[in-house]
């Protein structure tokens, strides 16, 4: 093996320019492949991070507008979800539903001393914190006792707290603030989430329902679920659920517009599928870029073989078998491709790291929220191994034609060639 490597080193050194030009084509191909995959991963990771904000196995249901006449009622009726829909969700679908809750919305101004902010009140159940992955900076979230007693307590995001108490937002905990004309106690402060500017202030659902005279309206129903693994199971569940709720509102059981169901689980599944497609597409584009490099190597190896016809003739005359010749050409091709490919891969990884250090760490300030376009735009070890495999295959493919040509050289003709 060392012998072969020395041979290759000798020939490569003899043709520095040609070897480096060939190498450049391959290095460029691999560089592009790695950068593309890295950037793709960065975009995908950023998207995933956005999605991570919600618990996957949850659904949100809200009222819509009937789209077909049913039971003597014409289409176009607005459907409002009510208390008994929530009860139905909790009891009839106990098999799959873990915790269910409702969300009601109202606008109000919250004041503390001289300062005030205008906020979006959300009447919530304790499960809301789980679904939205609410992280608290201090205090606690709305609990069942708050709900039962219709306590006048609230949980506000840190940025809202800062408006009311600019220097020490967290000390607002335990203080009494005015919500409209009523006094509420701050029991929790949410951690700031820079990716969305939140004005949502959470209060117990029952409190809001009573204060704002909502009767038995519940706004949205949100619940976590389990035991629905496949897309089909999810669809079947949604169908049953829809039929049941629709019936309670005298809407056609198969009316898809009467209520809207937002299933985050199937959404995540579709997202996964999309991610897979994007990654495949990136691989294909990258491989096509690499293909030009491979063709280049093959081409130059062909020229090399032509130039070295006489040399191969001499080698064969003094005892080199066709296999030996085949072997040396393919090895040379693999080594040239592999070596320069590795350089390309390392440069690609460097470019990815550079992207990570610049775009990846600098969030984009939109005024309303901040976001990062690239998160961790690097390729995995698995990808690097994959790329190495691609390089070896590419080298072999590039070398095979020239090698066969070289192995077929007949020594008499080669010795005569001059």
């Amino acid at each position, binding site marked *: 093996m060392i012998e072969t490597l020395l041979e290759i080193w000798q*020939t490569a050194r003899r043709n520095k320019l040609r070897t480096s030009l060939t190498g450049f084509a391959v290095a460029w191909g691999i560089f592009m492949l790695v950068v593309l995959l890295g950037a793709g991963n960065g975009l995908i990771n950023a998207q995933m991070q956005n999605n991570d904000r919600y618990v996957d196995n949850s659904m949100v249901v809200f009222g819509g507008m009937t789209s077909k006449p049913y039971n003597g009622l014409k289409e176009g009726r607005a459907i409002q979800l009510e208390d008994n829909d929530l009860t139905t969700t909790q009891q009839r679908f106990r098999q799959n539903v873990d915790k269910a809750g409702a969300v009601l919305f109202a606008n109000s101004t919250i004041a503390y001393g001289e300062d005030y902010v205008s906020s979006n009140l959300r009447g919530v159940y304790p499960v809301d914190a789980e679904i939205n992955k609410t992280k608290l900076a201090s205090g606690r979230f709305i609990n069942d006792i708050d709900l039962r007693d219709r306590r006048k307590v609230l949980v506000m995001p840190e940025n809202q707290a800062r408006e009311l108490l600019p220097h020490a937002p967290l000390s607002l905990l335990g203080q009494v603030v005015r919500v409209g004309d009523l006094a509420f106690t701050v029991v929790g402060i949410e951690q700031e989430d820079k990716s969305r500017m939140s004005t949502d202030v959470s209060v117990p659902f029952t409190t809001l329902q009573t204060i704002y005279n909502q009767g038995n309206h519940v706004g949205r129903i949100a619940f976590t679920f389990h035991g629905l693994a496949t897309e089909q199971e999810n669809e079947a569940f949604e169908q049953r659920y829809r039929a049941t709720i629709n019936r309670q509102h005298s809407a056609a059981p198969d009316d898809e517009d009467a209520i809207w169901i937002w299933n985050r689980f199937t959404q995540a599944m579709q997202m996964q599928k999309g991610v897979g497609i994007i990654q495949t597409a990136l691989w294909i584009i990258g491989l096509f870029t690499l293909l030009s490099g491979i063709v280049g190597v093959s081409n130059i190896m062909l020229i090399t073989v032509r130039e070295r016809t006489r040399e191969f003739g001499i080698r064969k005359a003094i*005892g080199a078998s066709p296999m030996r010749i085949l072997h040396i050409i393919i090895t040379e091709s693999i080594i040239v491709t592999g070596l320069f490919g590795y350089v390309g891969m390392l440069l690609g990884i460097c470019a990815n790291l550079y992207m990570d250090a610049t775009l990846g760490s600098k969030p984009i300030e939109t005024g309303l929220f901040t976001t990062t376009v690239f998160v961790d735009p690097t390729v995995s070890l698995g990808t690097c191994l994959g790329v190495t495999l691609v390089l070896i295959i590419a080298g072999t493919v590039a070398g095979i034609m020239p090698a066969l040509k070289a192995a077929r050289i007949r020594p008499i003709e080669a010795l005569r060639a001059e």
Partner: protein
Amino acid sequence: MHVLKGIDLDIQEGELVSIMGASGSGKSTLLNILGILDDYDEGEYTLDGTLIKNLSETRAAEYRNRMIGFIFQSFNLIGFKTAVENVELPLFYQGVSRRKRHQMAMDELEKMGLKDWATHYPNEMSGGQRQRVAIARALVTRPQIILADEPTGALDSKTGIEVMDLLKRLNHDEHITMIIVTHDPGVAAQTNRVIHIKDGVIEE
């Protein structure tokens, strides 16, 4: 097309033979067959008791490597290899270890008086030196026969005589069978037996 038309030739071990003929006479074809560089349609060629016919390329390469040493008119050294690396090459294809083949190649070069030129490249040497490197390469595997195709053809007369003297000495001292193809009567005269070939037949 029939190039050779009935050749009946027996060369004994240790002979120094020359084959003479004008170009197109078939002497190169004969040499290629003797050197297992080319195959033939009819007849038999036996080398050291082995019938050489319809060999696979791999077997032919192996036989060439072990039994035949080539000396060419244009030397046919590999330009990017030093003298000693050129001489080592047949041993490399025999699978001889690095150290051993370097030693053997150096010994052979020393016999040719080229020890000091071992690390030089062919283009740094004179024609006579190059041909001596080629002779060392042909001899290093201890072949049954040496086939020389116009060994003095590219050399000036003085160097040509030196090379012929060397070949004669090798034949005499080491009993190496030698077949020299030439069109130079002066060269042929120095061999023990001259075979004239004309239009594919031997006329001795």
